[in-house]
């Protein structure tokens, strides 16, 4: 994941650096003769304003970037982000931040151009990616059983994710029970059962077609009776534009009162990722996001789009078909990875 985005971003970084350098060369010529070394500690006369101006101007001899200087590079950045599946609205936000940060920058001549560009890019990306989410820390600091509800549209990998998270938690020493709340899709119950057996976790399930709220309520009760740490509640995939199904989800939330609502989407989704993340967030709320199928995507734009839209942290990335193929998401590491440590 993110490989192709990284390569391209580094290209833009250089381009941006170059256009700044160009602007600098142009700017440095006329400003060169002004070099009168005014003593720094001029007695303060008429207000601080003028003095400060002179001070800044003389001491630092800086360069002010205009929007024009970086327009081309930004346009290219925009396309690169789009090609990497970042949704249009998120692209606008990122490019906007960079434009805002860079234009009118009072940059000291002499300080490294790369450093400035890197800092701006990192700032813009971290701005949208936000913080990660520490699940085990959350469980430790809350009353047991901690109830986690998984939501999302059809086919994003909710059931598999529930199994993976169960395996992850078990490995970290927590007891887990799964509520098989997908009572709609044919075979979903069997799928969940098989997963749970393999992972070695108890699963609470009813028949096909049963009320999911009842199943998940039972799962919570079971956990309470058996002093189990975490309840993972699977639900049927549903489209955000189906009012009835969203109401059903709302009912589930009311009945089982989850501590955490986790929204699951796939890393390969395009612009629609933004729309549905937003709708789910509006309907039942979202506390954290899991991105699945990150291994089939070298781009990773969906991560940026979703987090930008709903402003909720990404908790895990699903990176393969095995139960161990789930990694906690750390924005700092990814931003460093994308932009490059050294620049």
């Amino acid at each position, binding site marked *: 994941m993110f490989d192709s985005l990284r390569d391209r971003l580094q290209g833009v970084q250089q381009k941006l650096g170059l256009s700044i350098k160009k602007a600098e060369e142009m700017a440095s010529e006329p400003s060169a003769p002004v070099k009168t070394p005014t003593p720094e500690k001029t007695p303060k006369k008429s207000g601080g304003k003028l003095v400060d101006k002179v001070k800044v101007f003389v001491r630092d001899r800086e360069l002010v970037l205009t929007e024009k200087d970086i327009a081309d590079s930004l346009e290219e950045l925009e*396309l690169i982000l789009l090609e*990497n599946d970042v949704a249009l609205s998120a692209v606008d936000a990122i490019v906007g931040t960079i434009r805002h940060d860079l234009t009118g920058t009072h940059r000291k001549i002499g300080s490294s151009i790369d450093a400035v560009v890197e800092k701006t890019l990192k700032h813009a990306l971290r701005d949208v990616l936000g913080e990660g989410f520490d699940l085990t820390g959350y469980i430790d600091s809350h009353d047991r059983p901690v109830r986690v509800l998984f939501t999302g549209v059809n086919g994003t990998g909710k059931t598999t994710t529930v199994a993976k998270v169960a395996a992850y938690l078990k490995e970290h020493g927590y007891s887990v029970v799964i509520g098989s709340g997908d009572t709609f899709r044919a*075979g*979903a119950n*069997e*799928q969940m059962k098989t997963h749970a057996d393999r992972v070695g976790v108890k699963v609470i399930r009813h028949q096909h077609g049963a009320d999911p709220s009842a199943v998940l309520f039972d799962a919570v009760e079971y956990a309470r009776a058996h002093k189990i740490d975490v309840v993972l509640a699977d639900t049927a995939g549903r489209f955000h*534009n189906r009012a009835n199904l969203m109401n059903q989800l709302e009912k589930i939330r009311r009945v089982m009162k989850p501590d955490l609502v986790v929204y699951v989407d796939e890393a*390969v989704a395009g612009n*629609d990722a933004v729309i549905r993340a937003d709708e789910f967030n509006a309907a039942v709320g979202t506390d954290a996001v899991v991105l699945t199928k990150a291994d*089939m995507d070298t781009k990773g734009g969906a991560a940026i789009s979703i987090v930008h839209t709903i402003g909720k942290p990404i908790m895990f990335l699903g990176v393969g078909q095995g139960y161990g193929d789930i990694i906690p998401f750390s924005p700092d590491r990814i931003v460093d990875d994308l932009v490059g440590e050294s620049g």
Partner: protein
Amino acid sequence: MLDRLGSGLKDALKKLAGKTVIDKVAVDELVRDLQRALLQADVNVKLVMALSQSIKKRALEEEPPKGMGVREHVLRIVYEELVSLMGQSAEVHLGPQTILMAGLQGSGKTTTTAKLARYFQRKGLRTGVICADIFRPGAYDQLLHLCRQINIPCYGEPGVTDADQIVKNGLAELAGNEVIIIDTQGRHALEDNLIDEIVRLNVISKATHRWLVIDAALGQQARDQARRFHEAISIDGVLITKMDGTAKGGGALSAVSETKSGIVFIGSGETIEDLERFDPNGFISRLLGMGDLKALVERAGEVITDEDVDVNAMLRGKFTLRDMYKQMEAVKKMGPLKQVLGMLPLGGMEIPQDAFDVTGQKMERYRFVMDSMTPAELDNPSIISGSRIHRIALGAGSTPEEVRELLKYYKKMQRALKGMRGGGGKFNMQRMMKKFGGM
């Protein structure tokens, strides 16, 4: 469905409406809006760039034919370019064949397999399916469950981990069937061993068709994935799934252009019947707000029999409440009102989202009201007086206001149909639809 992309394009085209000469600024603006609309619909960036270049070039260079307005001229160019982007419509041949399904995890292969089986079954072909998904738990149960609903034989060997063997056995087992559909496990282009597997399955099954299932929400990734699948087993058709969400399916276009194939079917709902034939002209017409009459006719032809609606009598001007009742039932059979309306030529008219639900409910209420009428009243609505209205309302558990509303609606319909008879052209049809929308 595609309404969001549609409205984006409509906005872009509206800007050209008042113009008499094609000027560069207007075209640039249109192309920029078009680009944004297409990018938001997940169409591949490179495709969008190529498309907008050629639209720009043609719009500025080609002279509009005499009598054609600037807007229509540009619209036609946009339309033609979009059609060429979609490629040819892939033919579905109704005869003995083996279809191999391929696609990413969670794209909807298993559901679509069952829907396809239903499609061929309805066309009168003996159909069987093989579940070659040896990885996902519950995959066989899922397919079996779906197939039982429609009485389709489903072959699978749960627990066996050799897909090659399952397909071999399955083909032998289902030899008496004309159409065999093989569902496979989800895989993506970077998993080499799974790509090898599907190459083998293709050889073993001697598949007539290899169809790629694409989630409508798939983004820029669609292009690379489609290319890899195409290299492996030469895809000859694309199925778009989950078109009932808000995703616009632009990723599928990348897949089409990459595989040089066409879109075969569109999946647009969770039940086994929700599969539509794809028609590129109709698809774009819908994008541009021109309506898709062809798809509607195809759908209507399948469900409505002659006795349901006596079109000729209606055109002669004899339109009673009884006819309206039948008509409503027919509309109900065609599926949710929303889907039907999406296919009608509403001339770029916007219908608010929640209006669909309300109208659907209203239709239902109207039917209850009509159920309380006597045959005489149904055949000759003019006899319905104040006291009759009161009686009908009581019988239907409704209010006199609602009965009057229904009668008003009936008169509107009657007038609209008279108008259609008069002009007979598309124009009147449109006017009729406007009247519908006004309700």
